[in-house]
């Protein structure tokens, strides 16, 4: 199977002794991988390292075969991401923010910018400054910016944060649509177990900085009545050991 993302022995510890330890996992091309864990489990830390915002103490991440540490530009070229909250330049309009992102890629014209803004329902607000946007609108512009270059891989950290119910459903459908139509690989973190269950076909559980297990959603639901039960049993086993 073609590997889109390979994480090898990834470790990063903060001064307060929290962080992630020895995380290794592989995500196949076309997978929608859900990274599940409570607040403070280390999901964002792992994802920050995956997109080069942070350097690991140990280990490496390979995206499309390129090391994020040794060949950053090639590794990240086909990746779109949202890490933590989306913070576009507040003094620029949505269009200007998108234009700024587009300059890093070839062949992204204004019609592609409009297309992405339309997909997230922001086209009519494209000339409004971001400082006037609500939290949900900022999240939507973040999603538009992440899909602008038609990336093969999308790394999304809590992508549904700040969205209303309608927005959550729209984004969930967008993810499923991109996965079906373009075979886009997704790496999505969330603490919302229901969303992960509805969207992802493979799930990894991160707890106290350690990866407890990785399995397909189908397998999990064969053995457990719900993803929630699987999560709680994995956490119980880990807490007991």
């Amino acid at each position: 199977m073609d590997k889109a993302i390979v994480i090898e022995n990834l470790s990063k510890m903060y001064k307060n002794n929290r962080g992630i330890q020895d995380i290794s996992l592989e995500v196949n091309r076309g997978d929608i991988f859900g990274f599940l864990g409570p607040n403070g489990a280390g999901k964002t830390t792992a994802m920050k390292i995956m997109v080069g915002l942070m350097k690991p103490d140990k280990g490496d991440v390979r995206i499309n075969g390129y090391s994020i540490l040794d060949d950053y530009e090639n590794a990240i070229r086909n990746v779109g991401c949202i890490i933590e909250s989306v913070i576009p330049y507040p003094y620029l309009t949505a269009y200007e923010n998108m234009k700024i992102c587009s300059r890093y890629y070839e062949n992204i014209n204004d019609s592609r910018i409009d297309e992405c803004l339309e997909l997230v329902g922001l086209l009519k607000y494209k000339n409004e400054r971001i400082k006037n946007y609500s939290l949900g609108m900022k999240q939507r512009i973040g999603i538009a910016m992440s899909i602008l270059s038609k990336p093969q891989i999308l790394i999304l950290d809590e992508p549904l944060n700040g969205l209303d119910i309608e927005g959550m459903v729209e984004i969930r459908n967008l993810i499923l649509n991109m996965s079906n139509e373009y075979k886009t690989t997704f790496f999505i973190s969330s603490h919302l177990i229901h969303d992960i269950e509805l969207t992802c076909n493979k799930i990894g559980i991160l707890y106290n900085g350690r990866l407890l297990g990785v399995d397909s959603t189908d397998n999990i639901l064969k053995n457990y009545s719900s993803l929630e039960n699987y999560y709680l049993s994995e956490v119980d086993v880990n807490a007991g050991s």
Partner: protein
Amino acid sequence: MQALKAVYINELYKISKKKKVVVSFILTLAAVIIAAIIAFCLNSFAGIRVTGSSEFSLLVLSVLSYTLIPLFTAFICIDMFGGEFVEQTMKLTLTRPASRFKVFTGKVLAAASFIIANLLMVMILSVTASFFINGTSFNILKIILSYVLAFFPIFVFALMVILITNCTKGTTSAFMLSVLVFLLFTGLGIAFPYYKSFLFTSLFDWYKLFLGSYINIYKIIRNFFILCGYCIMLFGLGYYLFEKKDL
């Protein structure tokens, strides 16, 4: 190359959209205009010749290259690095296919372009004002050379501010520390005049070496290499810290 170009154009675009920049240009313009009006009034009504035509542009340069231009350059550099880290907008740049070296270089080039634009604007305005002060006879080449040379020490200062910004966590602390370093270097230059030429703040007026009737080539080359040394060291250190910075 595309990544570096993208970073550079984006930085210039962001700079041009900031109110701070517009205000800084207006204040610089106002300073030149006020200086020109004072010189004109003293010249015409009081009979006091403050400067000749050529000297007015150089007088403006000698004042602004020590005051407003480094000040506004510091604002821009702090905004470009510290400001973006604090506001977390830096994520937008750092998660694009551009290595940190290219991001750093693009930002430094944008800061250099800001200094050039500022100097160019002051030069054009002060030369225009010179027409009104003291007729048309002035040495334009001398003025252009002075403004070109004035760029280098201000650029070194910009690199110093960038280094400081990458050492600190907040924008206010970066600004205060930059001012402190500037004052410290200036103070050291006064306290130890023998070592003055090793301090970049004493080279803000190094263009004067080219203006006299006797041109000291040895001193010019030495100062040039000192400025180059500063550039290499500050760029290297600034990049090292920028590269290590986690977001």
